[in-house]
């Protein structure tokens, strides 16, 4: 069974009179890993940002669980669809302070369940003795894992990742992707990741959506795409 989590209908996006996305029709199946791949400027990040309404499409409609995302309160939508950015943004204070932010935004209280904290840390591949560490002291790779853990604190069912490995060295990047794959397996989380490196698609074993010049040129299961990976 392949339930649809997010679906785009004729979605277009124009910025400063330039058409960045043209008439996109796309389905993201629930619990799957989807990889948006393509050259720089293809519109990958723009597309990703439309999904949790960090940006608005110029035309078309996006549905989440069969409901127009404009009809879902935006704050709730962003909690259900978490996002990890290219450059990890760490807030002041300890790892624990960082992880408490989603909860305190919702409730104005800092009393987060310790178990939830440890759970999020472990799921994102951080040791649980990191809790009291100053977040700014972490390595870049650890910071990126922390932003994943922080997004998990909202208990989302979709995680958007915008080139999460671009600030990391190759080895650290691969380790992060392995953790993300585990996340997908453990939580059944729908993952939508932007990258321009096909190798990452292989690690995540996901469905590849190839975007060029704002148009989808191919959608394929990962095995097929490797046959002619050089062409991307």
């Amino acid at each position: 069974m392949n339930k649809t989590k997010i679906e785009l209908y004729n979605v277009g996006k124009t910025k400063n009179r330039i058409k960045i996305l043209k008439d996109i029709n796309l389905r993201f199946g629930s619990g799957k890993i989807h990889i948006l791949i393509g050259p720089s400027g293809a519109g990958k990040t723009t597309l990703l940002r439309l999904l949790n309404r960090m940006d608005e499409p110029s035309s078309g409609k996006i549905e989440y669980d069969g409901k127009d995302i404009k009809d879902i309160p935006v704050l709730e939508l962003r909690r259900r669809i978490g996002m990890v950015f290219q450059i990890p943004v760490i807030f002041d204070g300890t790892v624990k302070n960082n992880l408490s932010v989603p909860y305190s935004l919702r409730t104005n209280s800092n009393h987060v369940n310790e178990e939830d904290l440890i759970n999020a840390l472990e799921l994102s591949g951080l040791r649980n003795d990191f809790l009291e560490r100053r977040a700014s002291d972490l390595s870049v790779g650890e910071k990126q894992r922390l932003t994943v853990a922080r997004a998990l604190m909202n208990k989302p069912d979709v995680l958007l990742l915008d080139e999460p490995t671009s600030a990391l060295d190759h080895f650290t990047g691969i380790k992060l992707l392995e953790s993300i794959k585990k996340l997908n397996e453990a939580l059944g989380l729908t993952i939508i990741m932007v990258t321009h490196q096909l190798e990452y698609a292989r690690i995540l074993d996901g469905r590849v959506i190839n975007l060029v010049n704002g148009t989808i040129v191919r959608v394929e299961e990962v095995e097929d795409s490797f046959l002619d990976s050089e062409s991307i």
Partner: protein
Amino acid sequence: MEGFNYNLIDISYFDLLISLGLIIVAAGLSRFQHMGIERDLFVGAIRTFIQLLAVGYLLKYVFAFDRWYLILLIIFIMIIVASRTVTQRQRKKTKELPYIVGFAMTAGSGITVFVATQILLQIKPWYEPHYLIPLAGMVIGNSMNGSTLAVERIDSEIQSRKLEIEAYLALGATARQAARTCIRSAMRAAMIPTINSMMVVGIVALPGMMTGQILSGTSPLIAVKYQIIIMYMIAFSVAISSFILANLRFNRYFTSDHRLKEEVL
């Protein structure tokens, strides 16, 4: 007002001309050192002379005419001029800025001057210009400086922290929650000069108003009490104006559905 046996020495226009000699000496020094500021020095000196003399005559007329509407009009003009100054200092001049600055300054200075003149000093009549005009002038002038800093800071903070703001928004924060650090920092920037001057007043600097009162024969103790009230009034008014401004200004960077506007990104 309580005075001692003190004869206030009037200054004749001839005395003023002699004091202009000080400027001439300073200009000579500038020429000698090739500082190239003689012209500005003279223009400044002449502007000081003309502007202050004009205000002197205007105030003399206003005090004699003694009508509440004229006094309120003068205060209103002060606020307009101060708001324009705040707006002109900003790199990002937007349509609504003069209005929110005007509103913030009117609220901040208005409440302050009302409390000081009507509740503390209980001046009679309520518009007594000898009190109302100088007090309002001092409060508005300081609010103007605080407001300039508040707007400048919130603009630059939102630009420099946009990644952080987006990270907050993506976690489900409201625009206000996401901009909280920026709002705080703007208010702090606005308040710091006032707090600094409260820290050193009387030690590093003798405030102009207090010195003026003492020169005109008021007992130093009364002058000091006035100065204390003035300092508190200024702190309060700057706090209120910058609070209102920062809270209204951050909004223009966000859409109603908690997105940073594209122009910021």
